[in-house]
Structures are given as structure tokens and as C-alpha cells.
């Protein structure tokens, strides 16, 4: 006869794994000075409570609305100008870094010669460096170099995004069928012609949708970069936070949300239309 067994066969390994994880994370509590109590403690609760309760109504004075519109336009302009500069850098860099236009690869079954690989490495290295430093760090550095304001934001976006776009473009070029370009190269065409007629027709749609997606990311990034003084909505938000003007913070947050939603819709429209 079968008896009921309430034992869980996987209980012991699970328990051991959990204990191990706790043991590893325990010093982390010390390092991160974690203290959930601050959120519930009397004084800070009343402080944050005051701050949040003044969120409604959002600030809507005429002067502030004007400021808001200016900051929003500035954010949009930073993202667009930054992307334009990034494209200027990314397109040549991606052509240099991509294996798709290698002359030696065309006659060696798609494998470039060691020399070609070696010459491509410096470009790839520069692209990796450009995109590995977070954009807000670039923004902080440029604020020190060219002063507070949108110029630092534009340069930071241009630098980080040229690294990302250059890498992704180069990979997109390599991901499509290489035979048309190889045929053109072997028939004696120049590399640019081989790119324009052998690769570009296949990759145009993907390039476009990725670029539009990155523009959307650039808008979000330019808001965040404002916190280190690079202009736009973020800088205004930083100022309002420091003055404890919670009504202003609320309307800035609402504007930010609306901007992100709008950019999302616009990029969907562009992708559907052009791709």
C-alpha cells in the first residue's frame, strides 16, 4: 500500500544554495550601508511625505511653462544633434571595422588575411573604448571642458553613440549575404561601390530601424545627463529638486513621461514608413 510521503527531495540543495547566497551577500549589506528603516523613520518620513504631498498640483505658472517648453525643446535638440554627429563618426568607423569589405576575404572564402584582421583591431578597440565609458561620464568630463550647457550633452551623446552605432553597423554589414559584395570585389569594383551595390540594399532597413531606436534612447539619455549640468529637462529637474520645489518636479516628470511616449510613437511611425 502506498503511504503519503511529505518529504521534498529538492529541499536540501535549495537550502544549501540559499545559505551560500546569504553568506556571500552578508558583507554586501555592510558595504552598501543598507538600511530600509530610513524610509519609515519619523523625521525623514515626514520630510519625504511633505515633498510628495506637494506633487499635486504640478507647477503650471506661465513662466514655468515657458521654461518647461524651452527645456523640452533643448532635450530634443540635444538628442538629434548628438545623433547627427555620432553618425558622422560611426559610418566611416563601421566601414573601417567591418570584415564585409575585406578584399582578401573575397578571395579566401570569407576569411580575411591576418594582416587585414590586425589592421581592423585598432578601429574596433577605439569603438569599444568609446562605448564602454558610460555617456554620463563623458557628459561630466565635457562639462568640465566646454562649460555647463547643452554642448557637453551633444558631445557626450556623439561620442558614446558613435561607439555603439559603429560596432552594430559593422556587425550588421557582416550578418547579411556576403556573396554579392564578394562578386563585385572580385570583378574589380572599388570597395565603396561594392558596399553601395552589394551590401547596402540588404541592410538599409535594419540600419534605419536601429538608428531610430538609438535616437529614442538618446532622448532618455539626454534627460539623465542634465543631472551633471548638460542642459535640457534633466538640468531643470536637478535645480527644482535642490530647491525642494516638488510641484515643479512633478510637472517635469510628467513632461519627461510624455516625451518618452511621443518619441516611442514617432520612432514606430518612422520605422514603419521608411523600413
Amino acid at each position: 500500500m502506498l503511504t503519503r510521503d511529505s518529504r521534498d527531495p529538492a529541499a536540501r540543495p535549495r537550502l544549501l544554495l540559499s545559505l551560500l547566497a546569504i553568506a556571500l551577500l552578508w558583507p554586501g549589506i555592510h558595504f552598501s550601508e543598507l538600511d530600509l528603516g530610513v524610509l519609515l523613520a519619523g523625521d525623514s518620513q515626514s520630510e519625504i511625505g511633505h515633498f510628495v504631498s506637494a506633487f499635486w498640483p504640478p507647477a503650471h505658472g506661465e513662466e514655468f511653462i515657458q521654461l518647461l517648453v524651452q527645456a523640452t525643446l533643448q532635450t530634443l535638440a540635444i538628442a538629434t544633434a548628438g545623433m547627427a554627429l555620432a553618425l558622422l563618426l560611426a559610418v566611416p568607423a563601421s566601414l573601417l571595422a567591418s570584415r564585409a569589405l575585406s578584399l582578401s576575404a573575397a578571395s579566401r572564402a570569407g576569411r580575411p588575411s591576418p594582416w587585414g584582421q590586425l589592421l581592423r583591431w585598432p578601429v574596433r578597440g577605439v569603438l569599444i573604448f568609446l562605448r564602454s565609458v558610460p555617456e554620463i561620464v563623458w557628459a561630466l568630463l565635457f562639462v568640465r571642458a566646454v562649460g555647463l550647457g547643452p554642448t557637453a550633452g551633444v558631445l557626450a551623446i556623439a561620442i558614446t553613440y558613435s561607439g555603439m552605432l559603429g560596432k552594430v553597423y559593422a556587425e550588421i554589414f557582416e550578418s547579411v549575404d556576403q556573396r554579392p559584395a564578394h562578386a563585385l570585389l572580385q570583378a574589380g569594383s572599388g570597395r565603396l561601390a561594392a558596399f553601395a551595390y552589394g551590401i547596402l540594399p540588404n541592410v538599409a532597413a535594419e540600419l534605419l530601424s536601429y538608428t531610430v531606436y538609438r535616437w529614442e534612447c538618446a532622448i532618455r539619455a539626454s534627460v539623465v545627463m542634465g543631472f551633471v549640468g548638460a542642459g535640457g529637462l534633466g538640468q531643470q529637474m536637478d535645480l527644482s529638486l535642490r530647491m525642494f520645489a516638488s510641484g515643479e518636479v512633478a510637472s517635469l516628470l510628467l513632461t519627461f513621461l510624455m516625451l518618452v511616449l511621443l518619441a516611442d510613437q514617432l520612432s514606430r511611425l518612422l520605422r514603419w514608413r521608411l523600413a
Partner: protein
Amino acid sequence: MNRLINLALLLGIGAAIIASFSYLGIDLGELAGSGNLKQMVAYAQRFLSPDLSAAHLQAIGRGALETIAMSALGTLLAAVFGLLLALPAAGRFGWPLKSAARLLLNALRAVPELVWAALMVLAAGLGPNAGTLALALHTTGVLGRLFAEALENTPPEPAEAIRLQGGNALWAFCYGTLPNLLPQLLAYILYRWENNIRMASVLGFVGAGGLGQMLYVSLSLFQEAQASTVILAMLLLVLAVDSLSSWSRQRWVKA
């Protein structure tokens, strides 16, 4: 006709680019002018000799540990709260709670980490605690939504079988739903942790601890040598996390 619309769109994009440059008043020629360029090069040169003294390296090591601890604990808290919010958000407790939980998750997710960090610095004071809380809040929104979607997509039959055998709701969830769900949840948590390590290293710019705060302070004091070491440490951290995650993905996640 189609061509015309596309052409108009392209012209519009071109006009938008020109308009943004003129709105911001950026003069690229002036920016690349000889005086300005010389200044920039001089500024960049001060970063070329990173400070590698033992004391500074030790401080950086502590900052890096702080950054990793912030991201790990923030992600862990977010996973716990995300799961708690995902249950109502997946419609387990009726529709009023479902829409309330979804609204809360969306609000948490819509505010960027850095803005949460600035708010938490006001609430909890300067230091890594504020950063941990900020990461936990934003990530709760992201993970809660992902968990809710995963919950909705798991097959309900195993849990129903346990219920029909007389197990209570909690056991049905633990032994009927969770085993199917766990690999997906773990993948989401690890992915967010990777993102959060990168984020935690810059949250310090608003005073929320970690490597970012060191960088901000040393740049404010014009100590470019120390700052460049911190940037190098950030780069190393990002590259290490990137290669670790791509290695572990190849090793354990089979497509």
C-alpha cells in the same frame, strides 16, 4: 506617391537636424578652433597619468566593492518586491488589484534610476544606501512587469492538479507554478543585475555612493590623475561584467 512621402520625411529629418544645431547655438567651427582645441588637448593630457598609488587603489577597490554590493542588494530587493507585486499584476487576486499593481509597476519603471537616486538622496541622505534603494525601486518596476508576464504564460495545469489533490494555494504555487517559472525568473534577475552594476557605477554623480561619487568628487577638486584611475576602474568593471555575462550565457543558456 510613396516616394514623395518618404522624400518629405527625409527632408523633415534633415531640417530637424539643422534646426537643433541652430537652436542650441553650437558652432562646430568655433568648437574645433585652435584655441579651444589646444585647451581640450591640455585638459585631456592631464588624464594621461593615472594615479596608481596603493592608497588610492585601495580606495578604488572599496568603491568597486560598494558598487557591486549596491547593485546586488538592489537587484535582490527588487526581485522580492517584484515577485510580490507580480502576483496581483498577473491577475491572481482579481481585476481591481491587477490594475492597481500594474499602475504602480509602470510608475516605478518610468522614472529613471538617476532620478530615483536624486529623490532617495533627499529621503535617505548621501551614501550608498540611497543608491541601493533607487536601484531597488526602478528594478522592482522592471522585474515586476517581466515576472507578471512570465506568470501569465506558465501552464496552469500542474498547480491545478495539486489543488485538486487537496493542496492549499501556497503549496500549489510553490510546487506547481514556481518550478516551471524559476529558470526564466533567474535569467531576468541576472540580466537586470548586469544592467544595475553598470548603473550603480554612475549613480554616485548625484551623491548615491560607489565609484561614481569618487569620480565626481575628484573631478570637482580638479584631481584629474585620481579621476582617470576611477574611469579606468569603471571601464574594467564594465568589460568584466560584459565578458562574464556573455561567457555564462554561452555556457548555460541554450538557445
